[in-house]
């Protein structure tokens, strides 16, 4: 089980309470597909991903981004039980979706950058460190059931 200090929990929940999950999720996924174009391999059925403008405006990208970040929120709500929270999703990503876990790390880092741009100077180094730990824990949990 991961240990979170009171300060870390506070940094996580206070940032999360100000996050617009739909907007942030859409942005994070769009940036993942733009900055690391090979990640588009999982989204052949998303339609037009031919340019950054197309990706940002793509409704399927927006919807899926919201879905992903909503799921991330479950981890935030269950910080003391993240492995269990993502057990089923981990199996899904391995057995059905066949997603290399490296992609969870890539998306986690993109999320951090989106938060930095959103919260600017409030996203202090200490805040970033806590969130790097969180995205790392979530990525680890999502990879945990891989076989």
């Amino acid at each position, binding site marked *: 089980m991961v240990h979170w200090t009171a300060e870390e929990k506070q940094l996580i929940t206070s940032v999360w309470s100000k996050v617009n999950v739909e907007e942030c999720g859409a942005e994070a996924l769009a*940036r993942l597909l733009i*900055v690391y174009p090979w990640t588009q391999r999982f989204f052949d059925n998303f339609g037009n991903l031919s340019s950054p403008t197309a990706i940002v405006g793509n409704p399927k990208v927006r919807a899926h981004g919201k879905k992903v970040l909503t799921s991330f929120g479950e981890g935030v709500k269950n910080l003391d039980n993240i492995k269990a929270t993502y057990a089923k999703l981990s199996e899904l990503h391995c057995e059905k979706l066949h997603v290399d876990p490296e992609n969870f790390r890539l998306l986690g880092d993109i999320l951090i950058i989106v938060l930095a741009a959103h919260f*600017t*100077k409030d996203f202090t180094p200490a805040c970033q460190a806590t969130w*790097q730990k969180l995205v790392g824990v979530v990525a680890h949990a999502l990879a945990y059931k891989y076989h």
Partner: protein
Amino acid sequence: MTLTQAEKAAVVTIWAKVATQADAIGAESLERLFSSYPQTKTYFPHFDLSQGSVQLRGHGSKVMNAIGEAVKNIDDIRSALAKLSELHAYILRVDPVNFKLLSHCILCSVAARYPSDFTPEVHAAWDKFLSSVSSVLTEKYR
């Protein structure tokens, strides 16, 4: 990997703004690096790494100056950073994994200071550019 003309333009444009706060951004990026990835501190046992330390600011400036050189010579980063490449290969020998970590922290610092300029296209260009710089700095390792 090579940068397209559009990517080079994006890098140069943002650099003009970043350069005005290069020292502060350099120090902040290192602070982010040492906070998020404490193992990176192992390369600086001789430094005072407390916030605002003179050595931190000095080193941050050094790093940003080198990036500035790469921007100025964006069509031939390899030549511009040849000496630094040798330094990292033969003297410093910083494990290659750490270049990704520092690049990420630089992107965070830039995004936090210039959120409206840091569009997805600019983000992609800078990620690619820093990746290029990292490649050059590690290409003589073996």
